[in-house]
């Protein structure tokens, strides 16, 4: 009896010392783990197979006399084909399985709410559209799909939440995105996984998954910032954008432009999304609309990435409401 208790305690301690699986706390974690364990099974099977055959041959065919002459053997074509085609077939299965998950995991559900992340040597700035900002902490509601738009103020960083099995690089001058839906209330690691300089290993933080009511309370409490679009509207005035971007002004009015497919002066067509708006602010001449003169100055170097996101949020808030997701 005592032994059992001791053993159980011991096992428990050993299990605590040797975790072999990270917490799985998002809707996609289960699928990734299943494939991971399938791959582990394949790896174990072939490793054991090869090791066993080698050990068996090592013993059975050990040299018994110094001048021993082994018999000649031939490589039958069928055997060569078998061990070419069987691994190929296994690879095909893995490829389709992994790709199915990847494609599925790269498309956020239409009902996702948004959060914005800016990597900066050596911290994570997080901005909620409703206003709250955080550093190295990310509060999210459970059971709510969230799309994260990621960028960097300086070098490349990697935004990684192991418990959710999601990761994406934060690139300077570009928006990338991931989405997740947390399934378990709890506290999880947040890491930078792309080496970014001296304090790379200190660029870590925590993700707090909260019950939805707690999250609502959290959003309402704490310091009260303007919402991102409000802050963007403010900037829109301060920077003088509003003097041209009005009906009859030198620039196109921006009401309803977000999410539209526009034809540009150079003949190309693009969807007006976050990346395109950012580009229009930095390099206006590269996304010139027909019927407008190329008179907008560049705002390159005048805005940090946070302000950029606020301007994008403001343009987005001018409608239409349905956002383009994923593709």
């Amino acid at each position, binding site marked *: 009896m005592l032994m059992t208790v001791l053993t159980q305690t011991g096992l428990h301690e050993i299990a605590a*010392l*040797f*975790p072999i*699986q*990270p917490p799985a706390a998002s809707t*996609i974690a289960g699928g*990734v783990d299943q*494939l*991971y364990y399938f791959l582990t099974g394949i*790896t174990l099977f*072939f*490793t054991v197979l*090869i*090791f066993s*055959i*080698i050990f068996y*041959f*090592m013993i059975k065919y050990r*040299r*018994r006399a110094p001048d*021993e*002459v*082994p*018999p*000649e*053997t031939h*490589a039958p074509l069928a055997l*060569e084909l078998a*061990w*070419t085609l069987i*691994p*190929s077939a296994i*690879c095909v299965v*893995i*490829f389709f399985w*992994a*790709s199915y*998950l*990847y494609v599925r*995991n790269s498309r956020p559900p239409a009902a996702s709410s948004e959060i914005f992340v800016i990597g900066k040597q050596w911290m994570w700035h997080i901005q909620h559209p409703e206003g709250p900002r955080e550093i190295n902490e990310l509060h999210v509601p459970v059971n709510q799909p969230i799309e994260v738009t990621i960028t960097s103020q300086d*070098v490349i960083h*990697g935004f*990684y939440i*192991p418990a959710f*099995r*999601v*990761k994406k*690089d934060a*690139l*300077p*001058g570009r928006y*990338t995105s991931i989405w997740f839906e947390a399934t378990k209330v709890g506290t999880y690691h947040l*890491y*930078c*996984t792309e*080496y970014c*300089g*001296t304090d*790379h*290993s200190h660029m870590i933080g925590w993700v707090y998954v909260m019950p939805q009511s707690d999250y609502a309370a959290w959003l309402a409490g704490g310091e009260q910032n303007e919402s991102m679009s409000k802050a963007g509207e403010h900037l829109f005035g301060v920077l003088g954008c509003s003097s041209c971007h009005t009906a009859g002004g030198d620039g196109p009015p921006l009401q309803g432009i977000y999410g539209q497919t526009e034809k540009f002066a150079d003949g190309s067509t693009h969807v007006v999304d976050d990346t395109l708006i950012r580009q229009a602010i930095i390099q206006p001449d590269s996304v010139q609309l027909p019927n407008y003169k190329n008179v907008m100055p560049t705002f390159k170097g005048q805005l940090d990435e946070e302000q950029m996101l606020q301007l994008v949020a403001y343009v987005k808030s001018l409608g239409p409401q349905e956002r383009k997701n994923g593709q």
Partner: protein
Amino acid sequence: MSTATLDLPPAVPAESRVTYLNATTGIKSWLLTKDHKRIGLLYLATITLMFMIGGLAAFFMRLQLIEPQGALVEPETYNKLFSIHGIIMVFFFLVPSIPATLGNFLIPLMIGARDVAFPKLNLLSWYVFVTGCLLALIAIFSGGVDTGWTFYTPYSSTYSHSAVTWMAMGIFVAGFSSILTGLNFLVTIHKMRAPGMTWFRLPLFIWSMYATSVIFILGTPVIAITLFLLALERTLHVGIFDPALGGDPLLFQHMFWFYSHPAVYIMILPGMGVISELITAFSRKKIFGYSFVAFSSIAIAVISFIVWGHHMFVTGQSVYAGLIFSVLSFLVAIPSAVKVFNWTATLYKGSISYEAPMLYALGFIGLFTMGGLTGLFLASLAVDVHLNGTYFVIAHFHYIMVGGAVMAYLGGIHFWWPKITGRLYPDMWARIAAALIFLGFNLTFFPQFVLGYLGMPRRYAVYPPEFQVLNVLSSAGASILAVGYAIPLIYLFWSIRYGPIAPQNPWGAKGLEWEAAPTPPPTENFDVMPVVTEDAYNYQPLKGAHHSV
């Protein structure tokens, strides 16, 4: 010199014959040699020194990681340690390791030639390599480099305050030595084979050297251009990679991996060639499926150029690009699997003995199998999203680069050591070292697979405390590995002076280098130029151990 050298009894002291080692003497005779064998040894000495520098950096890294808060140095220093470890081991040890030492030494001997096609170019390539090494050492001693071996922009081009330009120049210069060596090998293999040495009678080591040389010539210019552009942006602020200057940071990654993924095969293909030689010699068997093993080397060399995007699955590369690079990455796994199966089948009904080189070869097959299979995890898109940038990747490529390439390199050095030096080393010590390396290696790197799945990012000077046990295990393994590497260094040096005189063909192996060339060979390799009348690895009927055809 006697014309009857081939039939001399085994224990003729090398000193009584003229060999490439004693034909001329003095430092100058080595520094100005055009003999491919001596040039191979110059490379051996150079890369051994570089290996020690890279190994020392790894030693300090593993010490640091014994404690979560970092046991030894500040993060800034740790960042320089892992950068130096990676850069030195990849560009100044693994890439030249087997080709420049064993390749230089063996290619003419194996194909029945007196030297490589361009002996002066061969010597020049060593000087170019040494120049690259010196530039790298300048970089290290003028403050080090903190970019990681991957030099990702814009960190390396704009933000890092370390000696990036010196190091980039070092790799740039050393790259030309790869190109010259590759060129030399290709021409030698095409034009200088002995009468009767047809393509399909070539030892598989030669096929793997051929495939490696192709990658040297096609891939190396790209890394040279990439690092040149990096230096240009860093010194003259020409906007190429930094978005603040109008550049594209991902362009660097595309260009870097266009070379550096094939470079993985530069490191492992020669090892595969060595293993084919060792497995056949110690089981006295013809290789199982010669043409499958030979063409799988070529297939690997070709496909290796179109898989680079699998390093970039989480960079925001399009979903479709991800799918294509994923399927191509699975494709490159197949020829490697074919090789493993054929090596294993070669043992079937063999006459297997277990001298040290064979232990390395068998260890290679096991570790390479694990390294290859864990590569499937990283080719699988959804799983790579989780594992990318973690210790899983570190573990995977060390199973290939250390468990594979370094094991093969050591196996090859042990196998051809009697040929190179004319001396035998103590086999028992060699077996002990091989076993220690196998155990130490697994203890070092297996826990890192688990760490990676748990989510521990690579390149962390400090880490969350729950990862400590696995890190301590890994560091313990590294100390065993260090002992395993130190032992051969001692007895191999010892054997040069005190080892028993080697017979011409101590393993009873087939191949011109053993059967037709004296041990150690004379400067011109063969007393009588060989004519080849049979396939490689024709162990039937077995001739006397030192009797030649």
